């Protein structure tokens, strides 16, 4: 509802910020400000994005690219203040790094309105994909609904017709179930919203057991997903589970352990995607950091390479040319080729993965393509 007048607000802000943005630096240099979560409970995701991003930066060795990194502590108001700092005193050209949708909603509109670019390496809230899309906002990962839509499509393919759905009671949780239901053709055996940060799912598992469902779809990011899967595995309920990649990613899979084996999950990336860039990325990431890369690391890596590819073609001070260069997505993405839609969100394949064990390490392998060249549902609302 608040986006109706965004355009007006934006133009007013741009007017005010106009004086600042023209403070041009040397030709061709690009300063990137990364605001991401490096401390507290959700730090693992931010660290992966940062490590992936910096790996690409170091590999390129482009001296014209400078990166400043700050920790948002997963607090939206801290993120807003850091964005102010990056823009006002660091005078960055591009902001990136934010993990969480609520932080992105706090930072992105003000950033793009001030004439800076924002490249999202993770969050893709629906308002920014639809009516609130902006020429300076690019999403390099996915629109939030994408992985859920693919899971819904997979449920149809797998012949499920009665899914029990579970998500935390907050906007991203509601979007998740909306996304799942968009392509899913069966019935709902139940729809439950849990408390954000909940650690015990015994009550929900009991409801699942009693519901007569033939499949369970859940979106419980971070520690919530670990708790749910461990408890589900111990409950004796054996209804198949589907989820988005977030609960099955490299960073947390080891903490879930055998409880995750065999679970199907959806992702736009996996380490076994067969292309040269990906093989090199997985090997060099392991070499540099001593662990397997995650989905988040791949997104950070792609974001950096996208910036580098645009730098080869245009000067960031010429915003239109730089924007056009970004829009071509002309780099070797580790997920394989993808393109940007009219709302500057990826049009890409989304795969179905299965959790397996390789030696001592739990990881994923791709078993099917859930959706091919999938764009998001909000692109039509975007007037770009």
């Amino acid at each position, binding site marked *: 509802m608040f986006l109706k007048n965004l355009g007006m607000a934006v133009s007013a802000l741009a007017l005010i910020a106009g004086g600042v943005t023209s403070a041009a630096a040397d030709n061709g240099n690009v300063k990137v400000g990364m605001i991401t979560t490096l401390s507290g409970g959700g730090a693992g995701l931010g660290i992966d994005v940062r490590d992936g991003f910096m790996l690409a930066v170091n590999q390129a060795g482009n001296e014209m690219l400078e990166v400043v990194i700050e920790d948002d502590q997963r607090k939206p108001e801290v993120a807003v203040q850091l964005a102010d700092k990056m823009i006002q005193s660091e005078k960055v050209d591009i902001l990136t790094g934010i993990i969480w949708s609520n932080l992105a909603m706090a930072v992105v509109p003000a950033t793009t309105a001030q004439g800076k670019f924002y490249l999202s390496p993770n969050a893709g809230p629906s308002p920014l994909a639809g009516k609130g899309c902006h020429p300076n906002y690019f999403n390099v990962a996915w629109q939030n609904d994408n992985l859920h839509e693919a899971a819904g499509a997979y449920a149809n393919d797998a012949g499920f017709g009665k899914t029990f759905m579970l998500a935390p009671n907050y906007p991203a949780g509601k979007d998740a179930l909306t996304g799942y239901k968009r392509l899913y053709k069966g019935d709902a055996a139940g729809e439950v919203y849990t*408390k954000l940060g909940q650690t*015990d799912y015994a009550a929900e598992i*009991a409801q699942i057991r009693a519901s007569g469902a033939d499949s369970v779809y859940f979106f419980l990011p971070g520690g919530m997903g670990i708790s749910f899967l461990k408890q589900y*595995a*111990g409950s004796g309920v054996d209804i198949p589970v589907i989820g988005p990649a977030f609960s099955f990613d490299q960073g947390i899979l080891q903490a879930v352990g055998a409880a995750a084996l065999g679970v199907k999950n959806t992702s736009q990336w996996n380490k076994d995607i067969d292309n040269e860039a990906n093989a090199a990325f997985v090997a060099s990431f392991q070499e540099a950091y001593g662990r397997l890369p995650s989905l988040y690391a791949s997104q950070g890596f792609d974001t950096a390479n996208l910036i580098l590819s645009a730098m080869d073609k245009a000067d960031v001070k010429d915003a239109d040319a730089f924007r056009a260069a970004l829009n071509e997505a002309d780099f070797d993405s580790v997920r394989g080729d993808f393109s940007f839609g009219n709302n500057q969100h990826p049009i890409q394949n989304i795969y179905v993965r299965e959790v397996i064990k390789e030696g001592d390490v739990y990881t994923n392998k791709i078993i099917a393509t859930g959706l091919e060249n999938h764009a998001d549902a909000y692109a039509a609302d975007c007037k770009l």
Partner: protein
Amino acid sequence: MSLVLLIEQVLNGLQSGVMLFLMAAGLTLVFGVMGLINLAHGSLYMVGAFAAAATAAATGSFLLALIASLAAAAAAGAVIELAVIRRLYNRDHLDQVLATFALILIFSEGTRWLFGSFPLFLDVPSYLSGAVTLPFGIQYPLYRLTIIGVGLAVAVALFLLVSRTRLGIRIRAGESDREMIAALGVDISRLYTVVFALGAALAGLAGAMVGAIQSVQVGMGEPVLILAFVVIVIGGIGSIKGALVGSLLVGLTDTLGGFLLPQAFGLFMDASSATSIGSALASMLIYILMAGVLIFRPSGLFGRA
């Protein structure tokens, strides 16, 4: 809604209640004997869980992991008691809240520095995994039954400790008259260290037991800490009996509220808004319970006025 589902939910409430009791017992003991509010109690819960996860990873034994959790949390408790906490006994509550708030920061980031930012793995041992069938055909996870058993056993042991042993006599004496027991020649500072370490060990045990079915990660102690405070305030601070009753009350209210409220709202509104409003209200329910208890009994159910 079937009766079987309701019984299963009551069991779940019971299980979360007894684990809360392990946390709340330590808090209430420390408050009763030393008059100290310890916000860092949740950190000791986390220490227990991390120690268990590290030990389980190294040895593969769940029993050793539990022992490690007790030992590590007791040791951490004794160390902070000696270094920090004992300077706070004569301070007002404000200083205690602040100093232990500072300890939370140190523990959380220190743990992250030691173990990294990713959650650790700790799982239920194979001999306790899976579900058992109870009367009325109820399928219930064996591990959760074990938790209920262990929790109740600890509760009984604690009551016996306080009512039957020499340490218990001293604890009770310390609660009612501090000068008196010092005059009787009891080494009061050692007593305090022991009580604090005991409370810490119980928190550590709770962390390890719960860690096996939840996520072992930095910050895991904070939600539990707040719940444990709600428990001891409802039960009456300093009362172990109050802690037990409060724990079960909070455990059952939280579990059953989250399950029943959305269904109750569903009787007179459409399903999706009932789910949404019911869930919202359910998450506030225990705080409403606590406010309600305090309004009618300002010192909790079993507190001394």
